[in-house]
């Protein structure tokens, strides 16, 4: 099959003298413009005692800078009809605003002001503490979040992927304003950031504007390499959790390659065959949460009535992360049966690999998804910024081409390497105190 190129837009890229990388993706037809700033800082930069710092700093960058007092950034963007937000992950923190195209100067001014000069004042940090706490509590209401945290704890002993980006409860209680300011000043800055502007603007004028606003910023921002290498696991790790909820839930995980590892293409295809999702190459609209009846896990678990939901998940990260399989039990089905059925399914794919039909379907999904993934200024800004931060220099295109070359044998071999019993983590969640409905 001839690989179909992704619809990646034409991009003008340059670097300012202070180190800031800039990507401009003009689209004359776009009614909007989307401004993204991606920082190469996330929970990978933290250590016990300051877990959650990246996420907390993200919140604080909305709480005031020299030219925008508390609440004024939000107001400036929203009053022109724009939307803005931010998110923090293990490897990055990203801020975005999408506005009607004639107002693109508003978010550019905000991002320039808070890139190196956010205030992080003591009273605001203290007031934000309970907000962060509340965000965490909202997540804890979900058994899936509790299981996911336990999986990370079991999978990683020394690597900072051990904790969720929200941070530990104890660290949220004790992190000080001074610690957050030090963290911000160390990692935020022009050398550790990518600015992306996508949508309706004229590129020459935009380049001038960007140079005017961002060139005066001092060079700064450390892009650190995580030195900790997680030792190879030498035995299965397992935990049983219980708590509020309705339905027994099971998640299994295995250590997976880093994004730039040569094994990434075959692992992505394996994920597509098992679970049906192709998250790195999807249009991110009207597809999330869809069922995948043709996927292996759906057919093995949902069709015969063992589970009401089942799938695999792999979000490649900068360092080796986790490939996981999760299932929500059908009423009355014990988790032991589900676990045994997953084992059988994994044994099958290690024995015979995917069928030609499955391989063809997976390649089609990647190709089709890639062709639509850049629709609209916001998605374009997200996608360009993501790849520029975690895997720059044409990696996306090379990855897509490599995926089309993956063979069924590659996927089978990948499954054999990945699903080693001694590397498995299993967390099972059993609800207690379930209320009846009648």
């Amino acid at each position, binding site marked *: 099959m001839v690989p179909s190129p992704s619809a990646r837009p034409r991009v003008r890229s340059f670097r300012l003298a202070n180190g800031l990388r800039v990507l401009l993706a003009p689209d004359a037809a776009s009614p*909007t413009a989307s401004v993204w700033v991606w920082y190469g800082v996330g929970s990978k930069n933290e250590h016990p005692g300051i877990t959650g710092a990246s996420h907390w700093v993200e919140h604080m960058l909305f709480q005031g800078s020299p030219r925008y007092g508390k609440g004024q950034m939000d107001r400036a963007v929203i009053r022109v009809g724009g939307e803005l937000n931010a998110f923090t992950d293990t490897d990055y923190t990203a801020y975005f605003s999408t506005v009607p195209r004639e107002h693109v100067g508003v978010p550019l001014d905000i991002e320039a002001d808070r890139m190196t000069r956010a205030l992080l004042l003591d009273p605001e940090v203290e007031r934000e503490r309970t907000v962060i706490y*509340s965000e965490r509590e*909202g997540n*804890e209401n979900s058994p899936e979040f509790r299981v996911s945290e336990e999986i990370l704890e079991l999978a990683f002993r020394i690597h900072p992927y051990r904790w969720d980006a929200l941070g530990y409860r104890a660290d949220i209680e004790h992190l000080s304003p001074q610690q957050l300011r030090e963290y911000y000043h160390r990692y935020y800055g022009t050398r550790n950031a990518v600015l992306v502007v996508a949508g309706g603007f004229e590129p020459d004028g935009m380049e001038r504007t960007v140079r005017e606003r961002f060139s005066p910023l001092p060079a700064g921002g450390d892009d650190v390499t995580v030195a900790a290498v997680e030792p190879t696991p030498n035995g299965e790790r397992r935990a049983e959790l219980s708590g509020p909820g309705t339905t027994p839930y099971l998640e299994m995980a295995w250590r997976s390659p880093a994004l730039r590892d040569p094994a990434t293409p075959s692992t992505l295809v394996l994920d597509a065959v098992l679970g049906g999702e192709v998250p790195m190459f999807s249009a991110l609209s*009207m597809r999330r949460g869809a069922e995948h*009846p043709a996927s292996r896990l759906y*057919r093995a678990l949902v069709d015969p009535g063992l589970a009401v939901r089942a799938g695999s998940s792999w979000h490649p990260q900068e360092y080796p992360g986790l490939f996981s399989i999760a299932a929500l039990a059908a009423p009355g089905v014990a988790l032991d049966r589900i676990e045994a059925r997953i084992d059988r399914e994994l044994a099958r794919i290690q024995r015979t690999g995917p069928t030609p039909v499955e391989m063809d379907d997976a390649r089609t999904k990647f190709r089709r998804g890639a*062709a639509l993934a850049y629709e609209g200024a916001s998605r374009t800004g997200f996608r360009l910024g993501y790849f520029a931060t975690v895997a720059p220099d044409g990696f996306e295109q090379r990855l897509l081409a490599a995926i089309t070359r993956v063979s069924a044998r590659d996927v089978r071999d990948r499954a054999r390497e990945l699903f080693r019993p001694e590397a498995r983590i299993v967390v099972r969640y059993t609800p207690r105190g379930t*209320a009846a409905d009648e």
Partner: protein
Amino acid sequence: MSDPATPLRLEPVGRVGSLEVVRQPAPEGAPTFAATYLTPAGWGFDPKGREGTARLVNQLAVSAAGPWGRIELARRLDRAGGSLQVDTSPEAAEISVWGPRDAWEPLLEILAASVRRPRFDPDDLARAIRQLRERQLRERNHPGSRAHAELLRAVFPEAHPYRSSGLGDGRSASRISRAGLVEFHRERYGAAGAQLVVTAAAGGTAVERAIRKHFSGMSETSRAPLRLPAIPRAAPRRVEIDLPGHSQVEVRVAGPSVPQSAPEYAAGYLGNQVLGGRPLISRLFQNVREQSGLAYGASSHLETLRRGGWWVAGAGTGADRWTKVVPLVEGEVARLREESVPPDELGTVRESAIGEIPLGLESTAEAHQLAVDVVYHGMPPDFWLTWPGRLRAIRSDDVRRAAGTVFDPNHSATVVVGPLSGGPSRAR
């Protein structure tokens, strides 16, 4: 705004039988296509004692249809690069298809098969009922889902179709049969009272031909519309449900509201933006989160349907904080009814509401949603072009007056669900 091909102006194509067909030009250069079929087949029409029927019919319609079993249909969609989605409300059911522009023809064929010839295979039905049971149990035990279900029960009287979330319970699920689903589908998935909205690139003659080919000959039998009993006068009530072991308490303050066609809707819409509908700058967000630090999220929402609706304001907060959050939320709703919104504050949300319209045109999927909203609510084809003018005509006092109706205090309720007797959170 005068461009005749703008996605903001819908183009009525005419009717196929009595099926109303509306076309929307896709945003310029958009690589995708979308179409939605809407029909009066919401859970307000569920047969008594078999609640859950409408949701199951809608879900199963996109599972296996026409010549395609579940796996074949999924593969066909994947090969086209498309997806099918469903949505159900008390009044209506929707089936949508989305995918690459160049695959519009097979996608439209799949949509027609899902609408007209769902298979309701027995295995598929058994699976869907298992999934329904899981959702029913989650609705009872998850604080957010339970709070939503309880607020509907508190706000709407017995026999009102908005009172239910459409999931039913174990008993109703056990009474659902394939024959019942087939019957519901036969009665409700026809041409009468239904619409088809298509968002496609300009030059849609071929699309129109395909619509006629795939959607001609549907059932023309009209069915009785939804009956909405009057909501009697009642004092505000309070519902507290303790779900121990969770971390967060969900607070909701809610009441009945008006349909989008109501004359006071535009002023009420701006009132909701002031209260909590516009993230980050709204009163709830500012007071509950930014000033008090009591919650991560605090917002309000107007759920407007064809015949009525409800308003809801709320927040998720800690077990040690919910008693502080409840009066803050209740107080902000009351303030909106009692005081005029300062002109500056109104101006900000008004300009925001007008300015955000282009954001709805970033992609076909987003533009299509604007079109489906217009058609669902029976608004004129140029609704989005006239909307800014309607908003600009709203004055501060209009919002206060409208708030008395749109945020109706009659039959309102405060619902609190979660670890009320204490959770793992600690006060600071």
